[in-house]
């Protein structure tokens, strides 16, 4: 950055933020003024695009064919554990499996866990999806250990070799943001057809949360503990595995939990390829018929697994008391006797239809609901579209029409709006908050133009400015460089559409999710209700919710917006709560003894201490929102998600990977900026 304020005589010394905002305002104003004369400012001319998707496709074809034999070998190797898991789970009589899980529940957590295991698996049995569930379980049983190992190794590597940390962060972002659909086609080519592809896709997606939490946990180990380990003469290996990792266990278990959830949520994606008669395939079949009740039942089976696995694995992280082992043997003994005695009368689990009436009830309930509530739900949708989503996307100048707002937007109104914006900016600048004023002006300009119509020089400048403020000139250069690749590859318009939709969703999630997280942290009963809902939202295949959302709100952006929010809000809630309740005891005691009120503690002690964790949550929310864009394409959005879906259908490796990369780039930039601000915040607070 060579732009140094030239004269020392200048009275007002501009802060970095103010300078950045000022440059952005100037570029924005120039673009607006020249819009008419130079249309290439708004729309990147097609002639300037490079056939990047084709190049990517050609290169990948060559590369994939090169490594194919090795991958096929790996695929063949993986079929052994896969077949073994399948065989064992598929051939164990169901009473024995239920008994085993119940006994395990008792061993881990006493009566409540035992009851959870028993009720959960009984539900699966009653649903009639036992065989499909066992296939799913086999897939997860193989993919989760793979994901845990890979994720854990990545996390430890990043901790041991600080140099690679930023690279590892980037790789993790890529793994989580390049949508699974984008690499399904190459995976199919590499690994051949069958469940192994699903297994690998789900392991790729599930490893990053584990890695992130291992990194965070190890980072947070108290220096005193580390020093004690060094002083007692342990080798680095001993320090790590006998001291630091156990000390970071709570955070790592959050990672294990998130890893399990992510793997289960990928079950449905694995089903899109097929090759495996699992529960995800059942969900897809019922989805295709828009049978909400049945799809929900099949989806709930996945949720039940998630809850049982999550709660049982959760007890491993906490200090637990010993439960009488005789009960374990008693339960197992009873199960074996039961199975032997009633062998001939055991019903075939596939023929159980106890829950079918329930599915019908839910389905007709949905019908009654849409019939009864149609008008006001339509009004809700139309108002959200007219007054929020459409202006955001195409700007007030195009969204305000006689049949939406009741009047026609005129250029005069634009000038008026800008004048008001300038007035506010001037007022704020006069009161010493120049940066804030300029940002208001920029936001008003964006609202007038609409995100999808923003001139590209403005977007690049604004990104550079934000990057500069958040993380210095390196981040600014990186962001602009990455955005330029999208610009020249011809995916720019779609990228802006994706940016608009996920941006709106992330903003809503951050506000609503943050508040729910806060409520859950201060008041226990709220968490009791919120937690199972979070588990359900994160693990139930979201396809299931697309049916009622579609029936109520129809195909379109509003439905997509809701679907994205439903998924992306979960990490915000979880991390906010986790951060707020995990304030170290000493800090709490110090605050209490100095006579702080509950509210003061929350604002001045817990809040700041939780800030890094909450920002990690925001980061995850951003990544989740981008991940959901592809699923949202199933309800007819345009944007990068649709490109990826198109590419999957046409086996166009180049387009799929390019669009996936574009999406990853957007997420990566957003993520780096959030982290940059977080770092600044931490420094400011002296953490």
């Amino acid at each position: 950055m060579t732009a140094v304020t030239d004269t020392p005589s200048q009275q007002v010394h501009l802060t970095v933020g103010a300078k950045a905002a000022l440059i952005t305002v100037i570029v924005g104003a120039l673009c607006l003024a020249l819009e008419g004369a130079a249309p290439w400012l708004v729309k990147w001319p097609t002639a300037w695009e490079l056939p990047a998707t084709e190049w990517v496709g050609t290169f990948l074809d060559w590369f994939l064919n090169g490594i194919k034999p090795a991958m096929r070998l790996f695929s063949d190797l993986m079929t052994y554990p896969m077949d073994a898991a399948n065989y064992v789970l598929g051939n164990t009589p169901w009473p024995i499996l239920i008994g085993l899980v119940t006994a395990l529940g008792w061993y881990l957590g006493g009566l409540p866990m035992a009851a959870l295991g028993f009720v959960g698996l009984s539900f699966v049995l009653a649903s009639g999806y036992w065989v499909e569930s066992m296939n799913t379980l086999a897939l997860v049983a193989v993919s989760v250990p793979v994901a845990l190992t890979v994720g854990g190794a990545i996390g430890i590597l990043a901790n041991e070799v600080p140099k690679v940390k930023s690279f590892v962060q980037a790789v993790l972002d890529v793994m989580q943001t390049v949508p699974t659909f984008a690499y399904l086609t190459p995976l199919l080519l590499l690994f051949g057809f069958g469940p192994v592809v699903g297994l690998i896709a789900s392991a790729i997606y599930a490893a990053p949360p584990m890695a992130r939490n291992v990194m965070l946990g190890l980072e947070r180990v108290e220096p005193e503990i580390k020093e004690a380990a060094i002083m007692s003469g342990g080798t680095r290996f001993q320090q790590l595995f006998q001291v630091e990792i156990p000390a970071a266990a709570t955070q790592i278990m959050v990672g294990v939990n998130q890893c399990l959830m992510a793997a289960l949520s990928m079950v449905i994606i694995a089903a899109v390829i097929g090759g495996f008669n699992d529960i995800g395939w059942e969900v897809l079949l019922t989805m295709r018929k828009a049978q909400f009740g049945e799809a929900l039942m099949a989806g709930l089976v996945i949720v039940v697994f998630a809850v049982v696995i999550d709660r049982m694995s959760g007890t491993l992280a906490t200090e637990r008391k010993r439960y009488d082992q005789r009960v374990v043997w008693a339960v197992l003994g009873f199960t074996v006797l039961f199975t032997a005695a009633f062998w001939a009368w055991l019903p075939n689990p596939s023929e159980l239809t106890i829950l079918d009436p329930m599915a019908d009830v839910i389905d007709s309930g949905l019908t009654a609901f849409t019939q009864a509530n149609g008008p006001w739900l339509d009004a809700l949708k139309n108002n959200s579209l007219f007054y929020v989503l459409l202006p955001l996307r195409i700007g007030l100048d195009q969204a305000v029409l006689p049949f939406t707002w009741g009047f026609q937007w005129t250029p005069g109104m634009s000038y008026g709006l800008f004048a008001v914006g300038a007035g506010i900016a001037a007022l704020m600048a006069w009161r010493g908050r120049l940066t804030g004023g300029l940002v208001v002006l920029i936001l008003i300009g964006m609202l007038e133009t609409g995100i999808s119509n923003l001139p590209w020089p403005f977007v690049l400048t604004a990104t550079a400015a934000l990057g500069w403020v958040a993380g210095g000139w390196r981040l600014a250069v990186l962001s602009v460089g990455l955005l330029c690749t999208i610009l020249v590859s011809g995916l720019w318009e779609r990228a802006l559409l994706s940016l608009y939709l996920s941006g709106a969703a992330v903003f809503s999630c951050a506000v609503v999710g943050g508040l729910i997280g806060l409520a859950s942290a201060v008041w226990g009963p709220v968490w009791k209700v919120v937690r199972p809902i979070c588990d359900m939202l994160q693990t139930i295949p979201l396809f299931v919710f697309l049916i009622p959302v579609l029936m109520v709100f129809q195909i379109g952006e509003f439905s997509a917006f809701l679907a994205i929010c439903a998924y992306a809000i979960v990490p915000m809630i979880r991390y906010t709560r986790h951060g707020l309740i995990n304030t170290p005891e000493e800090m709490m005691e110090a605050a209490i003894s100095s006579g702080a009120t509950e509210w003061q503690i929350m604002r001045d002690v817990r809040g700041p201490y939780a800030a890094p964790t909450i920002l990690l949550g925001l980061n995850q929310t951003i990544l989740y929102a981008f991940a959901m864009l592809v699923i949202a394409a199933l309800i007819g959005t345009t944007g990068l998600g649709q490109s990826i879906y198109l590419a999957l259908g046409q086996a166009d490796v180049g387009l799929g990977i390019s669009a996936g990369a574009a999406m990853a780039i957007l997420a990566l930039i957003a993520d780096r900026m959030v982290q940059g601000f977080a770092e600044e915040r931490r420094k400011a607070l002296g953490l």
Partner: protein
Amino acid sequence: MKKLSVSLLAMMVAGSAYAADMGAVDEPIKLAINEWTGQHITTHVAGEMLKAAGYNVEYVTAGMMNQFQAVADGDIDATLEIWSSNVSDEYAKKVAEGTVVEIGDLGLNAKEGIAYPAHVADLCPGLPAWEALKECAQVFATAETLPGGRLVDYPADWGTPGADRMTGLELPFKAVPAGSEGALIAELRASTERKSPLLITFWQPHWAMSAYDVQFVELPAGEDACFNDPAWGPNPNAVNDCDFSPSRIFKASWSGMEDKWPAAHEILTNYQLAVEDQQPMMGAIDVDGGSVEEVVAAWMSENEGKWRPVVDAATQ
């Protein structure tokens, strides 16, 4: 009369065929099971025919769009209901490569078109004639499509035939891609239950045609000239100003199948299934809740004349 013509067809098929080698009888023949009920019926009927001939059959679930890599690798031996309107580019690539081969039409007569649930005729009088849509586009308008009407089109990866029709016929409608088949059905269901207006791109045979009483809009016949010659049809300046061209439904197999199981290959090549046979079975499964296996088994025993000759011709 129909029975007679079917058995005549069967005899003709039988006449043209010759008994072939059974090939590797011990190894199971893997047939693809895709995402929709009609395909399950088609595949299970074929599977039962192969079993009657003495083969082992294994059904493998496979995504319709992604199955061709598996067929090319021989992980799946045949897939039996491919719609020409909705086939991925990968299929063409694999056929060009020589790893996948087409093994003839299935004989299922499909129809695609612009459609609406029956109650919409009350909202837009003049339907099913397509000219009526010019006047009542406003009825179909929504927040996203104002001032035009809304047409729910196929998912983007199936192409945009609905949008092409609207442009060709200069109808004031904006096509919205559905994203998935489930989304199309959800729209149909919501529209029927709420009695709300809906114009949609749809096809038959499909169970939803009868479940939601779906009617097709009458468009000018889809002749070849319509797609090449702008002058043809009601709009002298554009192509696509007509109905859909008829879709073809066909079968494909792994290229090695003919050598490995010659008789099975011949059975699958000569296998035919008519809409009149498939549609009632679809109803028995999707509307009445029967299982595919039971419904197909019942049909097989009642209609032996329709399939036995094909099996016998290849094996005896």
